[in-house]
């Protein structure tokens, strides 16, 4: 039977280590972590500089400040500690798939077979060194103990000469000198054992098993088993988390965006580093802002492709907060990365090169941040008949062909450049209107003629002053029944359309959505102007207005 070998990774002064990981600028300072409120707050951990000055666990803040006036005091931060614990857990997972989360900066991992990655006589010792180095890369200094039982491994991890390896079968001997309190017996049981004269773990282990069970019951059996270096409960590996979280409690409330983004950047870097250890990327970025005095602002940003690009994620965070301000001072935040597998690609020997998945994900995220939602993607044909219809889907190109295909002759088609939104135009039609007159001078019946042929046209307010032109065009454009799903271009410069019609072809009637509240009924014409340009224009039969919605180009 194979004896399970366990490694315990323990971070000493975990609350302090987690805080320093979140605020790396505090390294080298005299820092103390306090638990409790107000005058009842006590120091639970302090850096080496503070300890040298006499700041010990249990002293109050006032006492600590009296010993060291320049002491930086911080409260316990649950978000920091949770994130640090996750980071430690994920580091352990890079060594073994079976990792148990023991909490408070301690993880246990089964290392059966892992020693084969470290050839030599001191394989387990080398593995312990590798674990210490890996945890150090996540800014968590730790100790490592390797043994065949959880307690032995935990005790070994707390020893100063880390890593400490307890050979298989030597656990009982290793644990024997420890005081009985390390087994954490319950108070009643501890008193009983003390009356029996049992002071150390070794004393308990030497007692006959059956006698202990008959006198102390199930609890005694468990203690006796532990004292003999046997685990009463097997390792319980944790399932991978559905999301990754990093956060921070602020020292004081933040009201400006820039300081918040500064703190968020460090959190995002830690988040992406954790994702990278699992070969995952962020598919959706959520964030929760805790507001003063008691509020929560929670949002999520959908990403066009899974990415680990911190710059793009930070830009998206900024844009979202600018568009949706939280409405209160921020006292703490949590960033949540919902993971997904990044896109994979296979290199081709003879075909066209595929896009690098990482670079593509970064590109999409940055373009998304630059242009806004609904402006980047792969075009898709939309069911319907309105010429301006278009849709965007996520850009996820298929793998290129294995062999580069031979080029084929093109179709040489004339394309229509769609004007989104359509430009409202004035049109002079044949029949009742004399050439050169403006539409407002026409009889209303001229518009009611369905087959009225356009003779001349111009964009409304195209000849006015530029500022007024933009406003009026924007106003008129907004009334056009365009079907663009994105936001309108607003006051952007629009093409000027004006001239006499040289050739007109039409009308082609189009009706759509007649069953809905916004039916579409149009008469389309192709017109060539003597001044140049071939346009696709239409008359909206509902409103009687004319619009140009495309240029043949």
């Amino acid at each position: 039977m194979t004896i399970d070998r366990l490694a315990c990774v323990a971070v000493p002064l975990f609350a302090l280590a987690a805080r320093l990981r979140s605020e790396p600028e505090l390294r080298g300072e005299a820092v103390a972590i306090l638990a409790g409120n107000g005058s009842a707050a006590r120091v639970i951990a302090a850096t080496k500089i503070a300890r040298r000055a006499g700041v010990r666990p249990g002293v109050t803040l006032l006492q600590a400040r009296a010993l060291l006036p320049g002491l930086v005091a911080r409260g316990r931060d649950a978000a920091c500690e949770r994130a640090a614990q996750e980071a430690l857990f994920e580091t352990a997972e890079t060594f073994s798939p079976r990792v148990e989360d023991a909490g408070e900066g301690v993880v246990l991992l089964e290392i059966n077979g892992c020693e084969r990655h470290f050839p030599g006589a001191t394989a387990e010792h080398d593995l312990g060194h590798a674990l210490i180095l890996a945890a150090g890369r996540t800014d968590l200094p730790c100790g490592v103990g390797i043994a065949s039982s959880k307690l032995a491994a935990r005790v070994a991890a707390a020893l100063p000469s880390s890593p400490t390896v307890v050979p298989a079968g030597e656990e009982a001997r290793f644990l024997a000198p420890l005081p009985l309190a390390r087994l954490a017996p319950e108070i009643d049981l501890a008193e009983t054992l003390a009356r029996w004269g049992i002071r150390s773990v070794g004393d308990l282990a030497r007692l006959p098993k059956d006698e202990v069970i008959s006198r102390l019951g199930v609890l005694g059996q468990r203690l006796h088993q532990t004292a003999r270096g046997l685990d009463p409960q097997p390792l319980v590996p944790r399932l991978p988390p559905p999301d990754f979280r990093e956060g921070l409690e602020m020292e004081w409330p933040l009201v400006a965006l820039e300081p918040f983004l500064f703190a968020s950047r460090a959190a995002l870097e830690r988040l992406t580093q954790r994702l990278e250890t699992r070969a995952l990327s962020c598919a959706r970025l959520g964030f929760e802002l805790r507001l003063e005095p008691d509020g929560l602002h929670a949002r999520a940003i959908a990403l066009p492709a899974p990415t680990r690009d911190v710059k793009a994620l930070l830009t998206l965070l900024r844009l979202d907060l600018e568009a949706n301000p939280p409405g209160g001072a921020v006292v703490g935040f949590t960033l949540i990365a919902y993971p997904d597998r990044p896109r994979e690609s296979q290199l081709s020997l003879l075909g066209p090169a595929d896009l690098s998945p990482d670079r593509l994900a970064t590109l999409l995220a940055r373009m998304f941040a630059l242009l806004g939602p609904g402006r980047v993607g792969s075009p898709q044909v939309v069911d319907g008949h309105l010429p301006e219809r278009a849709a965007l889907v996520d850009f996820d190109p298929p793998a290129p062909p294995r062999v580069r295909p031979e080029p084929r002759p093109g179709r040489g088609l004339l394309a229509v450049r769609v004007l989104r939104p359509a430009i409202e135009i004035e049109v002079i039609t044949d029949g009742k209107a004399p050439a050169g007159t403006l539409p407002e001078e026409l009889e209303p019946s001229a518009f009611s003629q369905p087959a009225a042929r356009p003779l001349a046209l111009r964009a409304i307010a195209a000849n006015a002053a530029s500022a007024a032109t933009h406003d009026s065009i924007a106003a008129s454009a907004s009334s056009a029944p365009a079907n663009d799903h994105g936001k309108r271009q607003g006051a952007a410069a629009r093409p000027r359309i004006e001239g006499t019609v040289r050739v007109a072809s039409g009308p082609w009637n189009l009706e759509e959505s007649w069953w809905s509240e916004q039916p579409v009924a149009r008469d389309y014409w192709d017109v060539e102007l003597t001044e140049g340009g071939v346009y696709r224009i239409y008359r909206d039969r509902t409103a009687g207005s004319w619009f140009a919605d495309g240029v043949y180009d």
Partner: protein
Amino acid sequence: MLMPMSMPEPAVSSFAQFRSTLPAALIKQLRSGRELVRADEAVHREAPLPTSLAELDRLLGGGLERGALTELIGGRSSGRFGMVLAALAAATTAGEATALIDLGNGLDPQAALDAGCRLERLLWARPERLRDALAATEMALQSGFALVVLDLGCPPVPGGRSSESSWVRLQRAAAAQGAALFVSAPYRVSGTAAATVLRARVRRVLWNGADGEPRLLAALAAHLAIEKSRASTPLSHQTTTREAQLALRVPGSFAAEILAAVAARPGFDSAQPSGRRARQAFPPVQRVSSPRLNVSNHLILAQPFPGAMVPNHNHPSVSNHL
């Protein structure tokens, strides 16, 4: 390949040493895998990216130069957008990933599909300002796209011409990645950064039907001319002509005027029957409509158009009704 037993066993790390032991006749025919791949990459890296329009490719010496900026300028209805779609169709059909930075937001996905584009290989970005368009173009170039098209739409371009340094920056990004950068603009914008500048002018708009009869848009004849070509490019020694005529037709149109416009094409056989000549001049277009029509709940009232014997596929009411 069978080798005699006396030959040394090839080692991966000493391929050159192994090759030196072979007979001279065999050495010339033997290539390592790395040499084969590099030679193939070199050919495709240096070969221009064809646009699938014979006239345009002939002018450009085979197509759009990789690692360089090619600028196409032209006013309204000069055929610029048709050429852009043709270039995108050729690249996507070849399996390349392409990006269209569409400042005018003028792409009709159905038109791109009709032109032959593989839409799933096309990244469509719709910036609102020239500054954003230039930034998006640079990002796309740095990400490894084989062809990046920047279309500035109809005049006036929002944002003007931008500074020349930004175009030089784009040109360097294209050169660094070996990507073809195709800029379509209503007027010159890229300054000295462009390796090749083409100007397109509308020569004639071709309509079916005579005066007094119902008319139907058939095609657009454009005149292409090279305004600038950098001496170091292959263009200078490969191209014999600096001007060309190009006809872009409305899908389904085979007007007599189009035949006349393209009759001057090299290899065009005027002795063939007109229908065959038309098919030779323009490869047949695959009809796209039935799936959309079948699933649609829309009601189309196509007004009969007297005298219009040829369907105009640009009008959805007609194309879908037919």
